[in-house]
């Protein structure tokens, strides 16, 4: 489990925008637990703490530009600070991460943060986030990545992971309806007709519809996995043949796109004639979406995920790997992310909390 859940919760609480939503943020350590909720823990404080922690880094101004220059080829020995050798590890007990500049609220970090804070019992902040999400809904029942962007996208699946009783049953139902009506362009009638007229046969990995990042584009592993997670959660609450059919098609889509060596790239198993290599994050996502599915492809993917788990130093990738392995009962019980793991964005912090909960037996993703 993550070394410091309370630090991650503080991170979410301290980075909520006044409008109730959350930005993505590029997170960095900003101080001790005592400083975390202090109104003085501003970006100026951050800069000072960074400077103090990094000691002899120097100014790197125009006058002495060569002073601390690293030597190529010996990067590991340089005096320059890195996430490995800085005095403060990015994720240690009680350290809160604060962005240096406030960004606008986005749907994805807001939905994940609300989900994580609801799970943590921080209902006040979560409900402010839910209000922001309700205000961002588009007339077609989907959600844009950010208010002001005039198209509903994959982030609708993340919204649909929120509990209907908190989001609002009617709002939630519209999110599910939007997902059910959304396909990758390669599954659309006009595209298929055009390919048929051109004499192109249908590739094996296009037999089953998945979900695109943005309507009008092709389906990909990431948005398909998220949509399956949301529909699976809905299906447990309110079973329906239509939902079940899309879940099954989505899973076949994923199984048709496994890499030759196992696991998933973000798209096809081959690109431009070459084998695609699996990514840890998409392998974890797809495994989570294949809950209850067994077979040689899943077994091979689990082996790939297990291999990634030991070497991975990306919080985002580790979150999904943990969730994917946990889904299939293959996450080692004692597994704990490395203590110096850097959480770079708020969705990473939120997901870490949710996966921690999953390791403790709480099923936020599946209802």
């Amino acid at each position: 489990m993550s070394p410091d859940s309370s630090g991650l919760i503080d991170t979410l609480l301290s980075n909520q925008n006044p409008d109730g939503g959350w930005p993505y943020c590029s997170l960095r350590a900003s101080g001790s637990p005592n400083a975390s909720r202090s109104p003085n823990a501003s970006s100026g404080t951050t800069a000072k703490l960074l400077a103090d922690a990094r000691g002899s880094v120097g100014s790197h101004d125009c006058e002495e530009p060569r002073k601390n220059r690293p030597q190529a080829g010996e990067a590991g020995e340089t005096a320059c600070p890195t996430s490995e050798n800085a005095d403060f590890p990015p994720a240690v007990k009680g350290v809160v991460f604060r962005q240096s500049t406030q960004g606008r609220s986005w749907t994805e970090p807001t939905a994940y943060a609300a989900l994580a804070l609801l799970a943590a019992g921080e209902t006040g902040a979560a409900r402010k986030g839910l209000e922001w999400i309700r205000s961002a809904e588009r007339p077609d029942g989907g959600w844009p990545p950010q208010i002001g962007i005039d198209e509903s996208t994959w982030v609708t699946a993340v919204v649909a992971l929120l509990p209907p009783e908190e989001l609002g049953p009617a709002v939630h139902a519209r999110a599910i309806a939007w997902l059910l009506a959304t396909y990758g362009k390669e599954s659309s009638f006009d595209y298929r007709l055009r390919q048929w007229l051109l004499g192109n046969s249908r590739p094996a990995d296009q037999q089953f519809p998945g979900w695109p990042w943005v309507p009008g584009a092709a389906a990909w592993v990431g948005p398909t996995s998220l949509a399956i997670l949301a529909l699976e959660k809905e299906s447990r609450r309110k079973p329906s043949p239509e939902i079940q059919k899309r879940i099954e098609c989505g899973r076949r889509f994923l199984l048709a796109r496994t890499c030759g060596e196992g696991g998933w790239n973000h798209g096809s198993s081959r690109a431009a004639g070459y084998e695609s290599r699996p990514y840890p994050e998409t392998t974890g996502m797809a495994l989570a979406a294949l809950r209850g599915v067994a077979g040689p492809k899943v077994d091979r993917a689990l082996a790939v995920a297990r291999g990634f788990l030991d070497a991975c130093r990306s919080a985002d990738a580790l979150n999904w790997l943990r969730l994917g392995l946990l889904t299939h009962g293959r996450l080692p019980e004692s597994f704990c992310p490395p203590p110096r793991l850097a959480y770079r964005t708020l969705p990473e912090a939120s997901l870490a909390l949710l996966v921690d909960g999953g390791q403790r037996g709480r099923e936020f993703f599946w209802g």
Partner: protein
Amino acid sequence: METKFTRREWLGVAGSAAMLAGCSKSVPMVPSTVSIVRAPAYDQRIYETMRRMLADHRVDVRGRTVVLKPNLVEFEPQSSINTHPILVHAAWEAFQAMGASSVRIGEGPGHRRNTLDLADAAGYFKIVPRFEDLFVDLNLDDVTRIRPSRQFSRLEKLYLPNTALGADLLVSMPKMKTHHWTGATLAMKNLFGVVPSGVYGWPKNPLHWAGIEECIADLHAAFPRQFAIVDGIVGMEGDGPIQGVPKPVGVLVAGHDPVAVDATCCRIMQIDPYKIGYLRLASGEANSHMLDQNIRQTGENIADVATPFVLPGTVAGVGLRRS
């Protein structure tokens, strides 16, 4: 997305008509300067090379904001897939020394979501001091909707990151690589990385459907204040831009006009620039920005540094090779 004729299709019709009429003439323009500078290795000499190169181009950034846009693609620090961090650091120092009010580094990778982890793996945290303070993940930056001044693709609008849009100078710093769809990926194609995946996804697939070459030309038009520095110290040949193999060339190629810089890089790679679709789209009337007489070459001669890049199998048969 609405289906209509693209600029490219109209240009194709217009070009055919022009050919039939037998009229083909070059358009006079002020030549743009493109420098080719030898840089044999990623070492300390890069700093001085970069400083001199930018001084030769008389890049005036006093009091202005600069955004450096490297090419970060995959977690493979030992390969030649990403722009080398020491080059970016050298540019950062040089622009600072030239009086820029701020110099930031921004990138929005198209494949991997965890941008800072990717930058870490590519060596940026180790080579660039205070990297996190200087870096903006363009995939997650706040955006503004724009309509490019010249539109080539079917996209009627583009959401672009405010950090890039607000820069007084956007410096494209790609790797010199072959590309399995476009033939070559250089300064102009590198601008795909400013398109925010937070809006368009990973990869930025709506751009593929709208036409890769046309979208590259759209992006070129959307950023009128550019400078290009191509990392050709070790490029990539074969199945670029990801699965190719390192190709040592030992040069940096730079200039204010990305079309002229890319055309020069193609000539170094022994690729015919007139066969690169996005260069044809963006190079103006009668390909004026690519014509030899409209490029003032400084530094090394092309012939002295040119070396044939092995082309990807996907484009090897389409006559890209320059004789």
